[in-house]
């Protein structure tokens, strides 16, 4: 209980968001109320105000807020919409917003590929299936979600747990310990040298306190001195974020995996052909 009151800034938006999303879930004939929207936006605002690191007001930051907000709002709309066709369209919006975020994170190739694959292929296929299967439009099972309160509650507890890790760890030794613990649990996942980093973290506990932004999670830009390249063919700073760098990585480090992925695609397409109902076997 004490924990909840201590972290009311995290608990409050979670509760508000959960209430909002649960309220918006399709439930019989009722339409979603504007109050639910208000609650949801308030929750989003609180999260944005407390958890986001201070903005510098430059263009990427503005764009981040724009794309992030659009992605979240469109995602809520997608999962709450009563018409699967609209859901698919809102999903396209989410995809586009996420692609914008990709661009901001120096991944232009992935951005374009995601747009092509998702918006161009997957969503279109979904719509085709919808057209084939659900020509009558709205149906009973789209009108009623299944146990929305329980599912939303569980989901937001998960979200709370995830965001708790990302809380600014100022004057919160427990949280700092969590973040340190994550690093010590999986230092390599963060691309660091294991031994010195561990001793540094263990020995100089003040490092995290000293820095206003904990160096591990909150640093703004990549630090070449920290991010030690893992292999010789990995990109250097100069090629980072370019298609050239990604190509080198894919066809250098991950050549075998790429081949495997290609095989997987082939097998999946064959499987899809086999599984899909034949025209000869009757009208769909």
């Amino acid at each position, binding site marked *: 209980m004490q924990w909840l009151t201590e972290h009311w800034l995290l608990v409050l938006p979670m509760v508000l968001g959960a209430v909002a*999303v649960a309220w918006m879930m399709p439930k019989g004939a009722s339409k979603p109320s504007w109050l639910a929207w208000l609650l949801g936006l308030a929750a989003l605002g609180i999260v944005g105000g407390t958890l986001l690191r201070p903005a510098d007001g430059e263009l990427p930051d503005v764009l981040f807020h724009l794309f992030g907000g659009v992605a979240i709002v469109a995602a809520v709309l997608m999962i709450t919409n009563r018409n699967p066709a609209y859901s698919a369209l809102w999903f396209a919006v989410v995809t586009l917003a996420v692609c914008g975020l990709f661009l901001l994170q120096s991944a232009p190739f992935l951005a374009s590929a995601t747009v092509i694959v998702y918006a161009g292929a997957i969503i279109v296929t979904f719509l085709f299936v919808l057209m084939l299967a659900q020509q009558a439009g709205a*149906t009973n099972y789209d009108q009623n979600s299944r146990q929305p309160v329980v599912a939303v509650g569980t989901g937001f507890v998960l979200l709370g747990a995830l965001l708790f890790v990302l809380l600014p760890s100022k004057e919160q030794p427990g949280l700092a310990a969590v973040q340190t613990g994550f690093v010590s649990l999986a230092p390599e996942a963060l691309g660091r040298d294991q031994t010195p980093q561990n001793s540094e973290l263990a020995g100089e506990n003040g490092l995290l306190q000293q820095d206003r932004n904990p160096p591990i999670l909150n640093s703004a830009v990549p630090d070449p001195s920290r991010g030690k390249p893992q292999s010789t063919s990995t990109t250097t700073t100069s090629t980072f974020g370019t298609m050239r760098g990604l190509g080198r990585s894919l066809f250098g480090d991950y050549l075998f995996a790429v081949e495997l992925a290609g095989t997987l695609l082939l097998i999946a397409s064959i499987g899809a052909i086999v599984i899909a109902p034949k025209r000869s076997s009757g009208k769909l």
Partner: protein
Amino acid sequence: MTVLTNYLIVGSILFVLGAIGFLTRRNLITMMLSAEMMLHGVSLNLVSFSKYHGNMQGQAFTAFILTVAACEAGLALALILTLYKRTKSLDVNLWSQLADAEIDSPHEEEPAVPLTQPAQEFPHLTPAGKSPPFQKETAHRV
């Protein structure tokens, strides 16, 4: 200037919203879309860390996620069509044969709710090469 944590927050929110959608929605297609949205959250996570560490591993994995998502979508849609052919419905609740034989059928837990939306009316277009007949109502509407 971009901050890693911000992107992670957006990614986790997307992930959780996708999970909620997967759990609550009963339309197989919406469920698949929710699952794809969870993948988006994860992809965003990977890309952010890639940028943070200054190497391309995260982006490479995102490319693989993209591939797997495409495979998954193709297979899932084929499966959905097959299932639809059996039950003439996309309701996931109809597929509960894994249930213990002695418990009540999950279909009974919700009474059928009347459709809120009436059957949609689509305009009847005149076939090509014919002049449309004049209709008063149409004229009024226009």
